[in-house]
């Protein structure tokens, strides 16, 4: 592990100022950063502990939005009555993630910033080639064991999956990431790897997440997060889907639907084609199963991850049927 300095910020301004030191990184729960420092993937020179900045761990609900403080822990947010009732997909995505211990530590802002679980990325001693870790060094995952890698949004430089659950729910619910500088729509927050897989979000140096804003609507209140994985608990998604659905007054015509995928892509993936095909339609099981295949339009398998292309539409369909009241 790199030998690093440590300072504790008392305010957002102080945190941002301290973060401008060369090689400085922000520390909140530490579940990603301490782990990756041990793996020698993260090599900070200085950690700026933001976890005691007052006022950033609150969850507030008004008529229009939920405002989730960046330092609220996953376990705290998951059980808030206002979140469970008005944004079930958020609560479910949090409770299906990690373990009780990790959820007590990890913060909402840090959760968005978690790094991929790609085994090649996490093992610098074993694999020197990783464009995400060391730009231009190549990609050991290409041609490697592909079982967990992305089938959507990949590039010749990187096929690593975005591992998180919460961000998938936030993508379906069109959340806004508020920083010390600006507001960023969640669809613009994460970026595909392209030629620069080392860049995973649009955050700039000196920028820090302060709050997540999630708009309230009938769609957010009728939402769910479905996660399919290789163990019953404490495992990353093989495929997951967050769906929010609002009916017209007749209770069966789909007024609006949002669908996002996890475990499949290099970033939380919005399935707009599925949404467009269902908007304005009367809910119907067979139509949903057919249309869910559009979720993996353009997917490319690397061999052992081909199962994801078959699995994902079924996960999407099950999630839609659930919020549609059919199953």
């Amino acid at each position, binding site marked *: *592990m*790199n*030998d*690093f*300095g*440590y300072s504790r910020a008392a305010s957002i301004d102080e945190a941002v100022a301290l973060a401008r030191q060369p090689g400085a990184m922000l*520390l909140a729960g*530490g*579940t990603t950063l*301490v*782990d990756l*420092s*041990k*793996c020698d993937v993260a090599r900070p020179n200085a*950690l700026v*502990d933001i*976890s005691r900045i007052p006022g950033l761990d609150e969850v507030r609900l008004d008529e229009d939005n939920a405002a989730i403080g960046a330092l609220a822990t996953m*376990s705290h947010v998951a059980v808030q009555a206002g979140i469970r009732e008005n944004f079930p997909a958020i609560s479910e995505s949090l409770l299906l993630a*990690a*373990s*009780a*211990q*990790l959820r*007590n*530590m990890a913060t909402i802002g840090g959760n968005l910033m978690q790094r991929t679980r790609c085994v090649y990325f996490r093992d610098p001693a074993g694999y020197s080639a990783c464009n995400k870790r060391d730009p231009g060094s190549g990609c050991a995952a290409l041609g490697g064991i592909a079982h967990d890698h992305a089938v959507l949004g990949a590039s010749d430089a990187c096929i690593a999956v975005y591992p998180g659950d919460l961000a998938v729910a936030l993508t379906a619910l069109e959340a806004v990431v508020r920083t010390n500088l600006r507001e960023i729509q969640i669809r613009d927050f994460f970026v595909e790897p392209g030629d620069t897989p080392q860049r995973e979000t649009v955050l700039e140096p000196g920028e820090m997440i302060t709050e997540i804003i999630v708009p309230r609507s009938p769609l957010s209140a009728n939402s769910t997060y479905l996660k399919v994985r290789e163990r*019953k*608990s*404490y495992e990353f998604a093989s495929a997951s889907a967050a769906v929010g659905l609002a009916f017209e007054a007749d209770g069966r015509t789909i007024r609006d639907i949002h669908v996002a995928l996890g475990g499949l892509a290099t970033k939380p993936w919005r399935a707009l084609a599925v949404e467009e095909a269902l908007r304005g339609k009367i809910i119907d099981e067979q139509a949903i199963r057919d249309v869910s295949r559009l979720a993996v339009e353009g997917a490319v398998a690397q061999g052992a991850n081909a199962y994801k292309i078959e699995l994902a539409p079924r996960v999407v369909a099950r999630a839609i049927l659930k919020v549609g009241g059919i199953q």
Partner: protein
Amino acid sequence: MATLRSMELEINGRQHALTLEPRVTLLDALREHLGLTGTKKGCDQGQCGACTVHVDGERVLACLTLAVQAEGRKVTTIEGLAQADGALHPVQAAFVEEDAFQCGYCTPGQIMSAVACIREGHAGSDEEIREYMAGNLCRCGAYPNIVSAVRKAAKEVA
């Protein structure tokens, strides 16, 4: 080189003055600097739960917590669970009675996790116990007896 940092840690109700590199984890501070070896180092990367301790009453992983992050917090380890006269905590007693371990290496973490699991109200059924104890792996596979012990202790504590 990073500067050594002086810190006070409150472990099991006692104050300890330490001078450590900031990169020292709470787990290494407990085991290597304070001689509290009850908390176990399993994977050391947040995947097995063997290092589970309580910080301000909540279960966390000591291997992914820097010691300096615990400054000003109340840390409880397995050594702090029994009463001063040696009487076991009900969860410890239930693990003995239900034979909820084989090699015993994961046991301190299992017990610390179980105490919190019961306190959180997540021990209402075997299914719930399994879900909320999922962060504690047991390579001997003592899971059925661990579930029995948690179920039994939950009834006694209630």
